[in-house]
């Protein structure tokens, strides 16, 4: 079994530069796990500790059930794809791919066969004798992948591998990477700051912020049940709508009141599972698709209309809040118009203003 386990991993660079804090993470065999978070949140540092390029200040690392905290990078049975690809400039594509085999003492004949298989798999055939600088970004990316998969490691570590590609190629490589992972059946740890990549490719996502794990879950869980205010705000495009206020009671039901809006929460809403919620200072979060314009109890005024083709993003003001919603493309709305709207309150999230934690998180949804 070739899973990965991080136990209480802590990493600081100097006294007050903590890069990773008390990180516990268990990655199953064959799982595609993304480390997602804003720049500087400690993703790369975490990956480099997994690779053995950085020593954790404290904590333990296991790969495939074996503790590797003190083991050299080359003996961890991992392969890594770097953000800059890090191809050896003075070696040809073939030599680059063969290098890890050479360093492991694979005999020459066997080496040739393994390189040939990898070259076939990634369709690098016509490029084997070229130097990296004679390749396009996409081709360099494939060579970096080739160098990683050629020796069949237990775990792949990828650090923002697509971030240097243009948008179209990125979408293509995303699909290719997913297929590759299914085909190889290997554990992959994938670092990205791009939520679209994480959402589309991952089995599970670990969201980090300021060196701390915020939530670990499937893309669906992360989207539908964000554990805290940070996760809710980080995932989703356009971003979730937020308004600050208090928990009150309206018509005998718990309700949110703030920013000039009162939103009653329907029976079964997770906030019912939260003891002592009444009167608490909270922030409400509503996804753009849960704000429905056309009719409803609330009124707002449209400020900006952004058609994107198949849908239109509409920004409008209601009470003291600025809200975003998405409507199907082709619906005629104009800036300055008044609109009526309703909110799917059953999908509204409530976060404690003090610590950002989601209310009723334990109750499920």
């Amino acid at each position, binding site marked *: 079994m070739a899973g990965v386990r991080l136990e209480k991993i802590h990493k600081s660079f100097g006294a007050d530069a903590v890069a990773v804090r008390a990180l516990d993470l268990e990655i199953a065999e064959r799982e595609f796990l993304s480390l997602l978070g804003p720049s500087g949140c400690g993703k790369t540092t975490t990956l*480099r500790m997994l*690779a*053995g*390029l950085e020593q954790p200040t404290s904590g333990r690392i296991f790969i495939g059930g074996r503790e590797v905290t003190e083991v*050299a*990078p*080359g*003996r961890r049975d*991992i*392969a*890594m794809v*770097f*953000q*800059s*690809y*890090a*191809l*050896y*400039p*003075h070696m040809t594509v073939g030599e680059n791919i063969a*290098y*890890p085999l050479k*360093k*492991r003492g694979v005999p020459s004949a066997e080496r040739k066969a393994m390189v040939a298989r990898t070259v076939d798999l990634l369709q690098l055939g016509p490029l084997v004798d070229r130097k990296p*600088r004679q390749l396009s970004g996409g081709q360099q990316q494939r060579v970096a992948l080739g*160098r990683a998969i050629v020796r069949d490691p237990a775990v792949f570590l990828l650090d923002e591998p697509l971030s240097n590609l243009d948008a179209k190629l990125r979408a293509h490589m995303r699909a290719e990477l997913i297929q590759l992972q299914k085909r190889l059946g290997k554990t992959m740890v994938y670092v990205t700051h791009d939520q679209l990549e994480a959402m589309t490719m991952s089995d599970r996502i670990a969201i980090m912020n300021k060196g701390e794990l915020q939530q670990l879950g499937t893309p669906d869980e992360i989207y539908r049940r964000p554990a805290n205010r940070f996760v809710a705000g980080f995932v989703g495009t356009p971003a979730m709508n937020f308004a600050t206020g208090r928990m009150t009671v309206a018509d005998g039901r718990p309700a949110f009141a703030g920013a000039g809006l009162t939103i009653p929460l329907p029976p079964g809403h997770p906030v019912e599972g939260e003891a002592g919620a009444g009167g608490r200072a909270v922030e409400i979060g509503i996804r753009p698709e849960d704000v429905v314009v056309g009719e409803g109890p609330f009124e707002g005024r449209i400020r900006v209309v952004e058609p994107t083709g198949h849908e239109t993003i509409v920004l409008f003001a209601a009470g003291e809040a600025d809200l975003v919603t998405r409507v199907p493309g082709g619906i005629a709305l104009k800036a300055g118009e008044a609109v009526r709207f309703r909110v799917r309150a059953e999908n509204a999230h409530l976060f404690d203003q003090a610590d950002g934690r989601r209310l009723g998180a334990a109750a499920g949804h």
Partner: protein
Amino acid sequence: MTRRGPVAQAIYSLFAWTVVLIVAFPLVWMVLTSLKPQFELFTIPPTILPQEPTLEHYARLLNETPFPLYFRNSALIAVGTTMLVVVVATLGAHSLVRFAYPGRRWLAQMVLFTYLLPSVVLIIPLYLLMVWVGVANTLFSLVIAYTTFALPFALWLLRSFMAAIPDELEHAALVDGATRMEAFVDVILPQALPGVISTALFTFILAWNEYLYALVLVNRDDARPLTTGVINMLTSAFNIEWSLLMAASVMMSVPLIVAFAFLQKHLTRGFGAGGVKG
């Protein structure tokens, strides 16, 4: 390249060729003189081309003087110094760039500081040190002496080359199963090659041409390099053997010219390429 008119072009060419001629004239004169028989040197009017070209001075130098010994000494000193400096400077520069340890920056600045010291002030302390250690009057003492002033420059030159190499390259090699030393040899060194060659050339020339230290640190005839050996052998209070001196000078220049011819390609390629891209 900027475009120039034909007139400007002509002026540039004229200027460049004038400079080349001024620089080249003594060298050409040296070669021509070495080929003239002794009696032709002081004829009036002087001849430009040798009337009766001869290799007798070269033959005498090689067969009847200690010139071959001095040549061997110089070669050993220059090659030894170059190897020592290149090995220490590549590893040292890599350490200054990549490893974090207390005093790293301070160390780098001290290295530069020693380079700024005029070498004359170190000569006597160094000599006393050599005597104390018991290596005075040996080729080895000159290797050490030349290393002391080639190394700081070499470290700084190589440091900038090393700093331009992305550390992800070295990390990739480590993940691929290389040891630290293998990563250095397989990946770092090839990237720093233009810098290593420049360093080697600089050190070789310095060690080959050095005079002052050789004069002070070595006063045993069989340990002299070419610079002091030849002067010692061919000049005396009464007489300078010009033809022999010129022939010796020509032969002293040959190794440098050969080294340049072989390495120039790498030098220009290195400088032309600028940094290293991953």
